[in-house]
């Protein structure tokens, strides 16, 4: 069983708390991404799981086995995990073959056996035929595959990946994503993946854990985290979002009303703690905002606004509108929409896709 459980893990470096009271369960065979901006503590967490340092508080278990406590940690070499680093860390003084075979030599696997396993794994990452090359004769993508093969050949039950795709160019990154996902499905290894790229996280993960300033903000399936962010930090981090200021006009659960852009009201679902008259923010993603022409709407259907800026992006039109109180809202409209700056429009918010935050 290669499930991982982090219980109230805290790690400090001097005065800085890199990881704060962090609790997360990662199931066997799951692909979990630790997502957050740089410096949020996600790499520290990964290194705690790998055993490079011991937590200042809390416990890390794999299956039933306790690996790290403040009293001490099982060293990395006795955890049987695999790890892929951002800079690949492919040893420049060893050939591709020797890089990949290293873990097998350490495990005293017989030469013939090792050769067979290395050959097989190199084939599976499309590196067959490059066994005798040195890393400086390989492209970045190839080096990345060597690093992967080196970790996978020892058949770990857990693979830790620290921003493994961030040094690759956009096209290659796209392809490697797919390959990684495929690999994880095929091998059934538990993947713990660290990245700051939310689209990467969504494309790859079974579950995403969003981290900010060392603390877990939200964890869940990509769709959940994207559509129902737990707070502003998560909403902001998971992609473009409008935060429209409003005031509660009527608080009554699912049929509450919130005033936006002057006096227009919007029917939304409010969190139970909201009271009438309270200031709130409505979070809505640009693709969930609709623009309608003012003539075909009746009074009350949508919020009046003026088009400020229009940018044609090929597959869609990116548009900024200003509500009457000056609030800017970003909208992603059809590529074919005919919009001109200065034009009067109405803005419709899909209340199902709005999330309300309050202080």
């Amino acid at each position: 069983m290669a499930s991982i459980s982090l219980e109230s893990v805290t790690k400090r470096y001097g005065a800085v708390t890199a990881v704060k009271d962090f609790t997360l369960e990662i199931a066997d065979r799951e692909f979990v991404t630790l997502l957050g901006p740089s410096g949020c503590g996600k790499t520290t967490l990964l290194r705690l799981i790998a055993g490079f340092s011991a937590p200042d508080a809390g416990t890390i278990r794999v299956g039933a086995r306790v690996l790290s406590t403040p009293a001490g940690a099982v060293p990395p070499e006795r955890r049987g995990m695999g790890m892929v680093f951002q800079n690949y860390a492919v040893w420049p003084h060893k050939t591709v073959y020797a890089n990949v075979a290293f873990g097998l030599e350490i495990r005293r696997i017989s030469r013939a056996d090792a050769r067979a396993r290395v050959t097989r794994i190199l084939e599976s990452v499309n590196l067959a035929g490059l066994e005798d090359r040195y890393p400086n004769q390989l492209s970045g993508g190839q080096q990345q595959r060597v690093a992967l093969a080196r970790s996978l050949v020892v058949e770990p039950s857990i693979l830790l990946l620290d921003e493994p795709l961030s040094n690759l160019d956009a096209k290659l990154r796209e392809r490697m994503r797919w390959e990684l996902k495929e690999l994880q499905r095929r091998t059934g290894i538990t993947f713990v993946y660290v990245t700051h790229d939310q689209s990467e996280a969504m494309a790859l993960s079974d579950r995403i854990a969003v981290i900010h300033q060392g603390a877990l903000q939200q964890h869940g399936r990509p769709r959940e985290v994207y559509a129902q962010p737990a707070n502003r930090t998560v909403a902001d981090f998971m992609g473009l979002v409008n935060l429209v200021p409003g005031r509660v006009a009527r608080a009554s659960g699912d049929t509450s009303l919130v005033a936006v852009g002057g006096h227009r009201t919007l029917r939304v679902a409010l969190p139970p703690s909201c009271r009438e008259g309270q200031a709130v923010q409505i979070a809505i993603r640009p693709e969930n905002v609709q623009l309608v022409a003012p003539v075909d709407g009746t009074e009350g259907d949508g919020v009046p606004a003026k088009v400020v800026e229009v940018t044609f992006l090929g597959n869609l039109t990116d548009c900024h509108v200003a509500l009457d109180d000056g609030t800017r809202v970003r909208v992603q409209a059809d590529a074919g929409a005919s919009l001109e700056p200065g034009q009067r429009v109405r803005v419709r918010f899909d209340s199902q896709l709005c999330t309300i935050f309050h202080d």
Partner: protein
Amino acid sequence: MAVGAGAVLVLVVLPLLSLVWGSLTSEGRLTLDHFREALGRRLYLQALWNSLVLGVWTAVLSIALGLPMAWAVGRTDVPAKRFVHVTAVVAYITPPYLTAIAFVNLFGPNAGLINRFVRETLGLPALTFNVFSMAGLVLVTVLHTFPFVYLLAASALESVDASMEESAQVLGAGRWRTAVLITAPLVAPAILSGALIAFVNAIALFGSQAIIGLPGRVYTLPTRIYALFDHPPQYGLASAMSLIFVLITVAALALQRRWLARRSYVTLGGKGSRQELVSLGPARWGVFAFCAAVFVLAVLAPYVTLFAVSLSKSWGLQFWQNLTFANYRFILFEYDVTRRAIWNSLLLASAAATTAVLLGSLIGWIDLRTTLRGRKLLDYASLIPLGLPGIVVAVALIQFWLRLPLPIYGTLVIILLAYTGRYIPLGVRAASAAFRQIDPSLEETARVTGAGWLRTFGAITLPLARPGLFAGWLLVFVPALQELSASILLFSSESITLAVAVYNLYETGYLEAVSALAIVTMVIITLAILVATRLGRGAAGLDRASVAH
């Protein structure tokens, strides 16, 4: 281009050619007699052999001292790292002939203080150590050369990215196996390269080889070449031996280049990330003791000894019973050579440093920013002196200038030519490194704005490169201030330098006065470095501020 090429021609290429010519001719006829003699007579073969033995032992022991120190500072929790680092730097700056004189005062067979203590007070004559031997020479030399290995190994260890080692650990290799299988191969090129530089430097040091080698009858190439200028000077033979000497040096440097070029993995990546240090526990005090022992040998013993000798009436077991400033009075006020030597050395070192950096800037700039034909050749030619021991430079200059009607032999000018020629590679390297940091677009912007080439160079390039150029200036100034190997063949009583004054006084056997002069020398070197860095730091700080705005 013409200026740069002309300078390199006069400073390096032509003297070297006349050295070759001199070694192959005798009274105008082509002959191999000089080489036959140099390689045929036991006298000279012994010197060649001794130089090689000295070089190899020094290289090996430089690793033995430098590597543990580098590892301790870079990878462990050993206490007082700053102290260990400063030890290496001071050991490097200390002129080896001063260390040699100090060790003669401690381990001279008869009068050496420690030897007398062991023999007379402890009554254990078997434990005395005769410094006038190959072992003594190696000891004194390695105390000067181990910093080459230390510095290169330290920066290599620092630039190995931690993930290289962590990958091995995750794959199941413990600390020890990781060190042997991953770290060691990665830093080996840097260590070997440091050892080769130690080798090249060690065999070129004239001062320590003369002070320790001659009384012990351990003749080496520099001291043999020097002796050939006695009586009737034997220029041809000296030239032939110089060329053999150059061959060894160049071979070692070529080996080092190839090693670094082909097998260096660490110099390119810059500083790697590193979080955890090896916790040594109580063993760290043992490691610290090792570093402290190096400090005692390389720094404390030489300086304390020289200071004590300089204050004593006569050096011996009871020297502290009658202390005196008479030696300093003699050196500073009665011995008229001192002031001339100080003045000459300061003048020569500043002039040589300035010339080397200016020429270096010109050559570096031509190489980096122009497409002039022959620029690579110029750059290469300017690096030749790296392979030339100081005494060889002197022999070459003598060969060259004696053929010309210009009477510069015996003047400060020929010494300045020697220094500038010797240290021009340092100027070129510093300048190239400094210019490489400046994006060409910064200069192009000035040109587009309407500034001419000269204006651009003066207003944009030079100010931006100043911190780097200044570092290069200091890199030339410090060794030039203590230069002995070339000066020893070129000086006259008018153009005597500090190091030559020390050596000459030592030859008279007046140890107390020589120690006083040695201390004065070190004070001057220290003061000069302090003043120069103070001035340079101000300039560098200003530059950084102006770049930021």
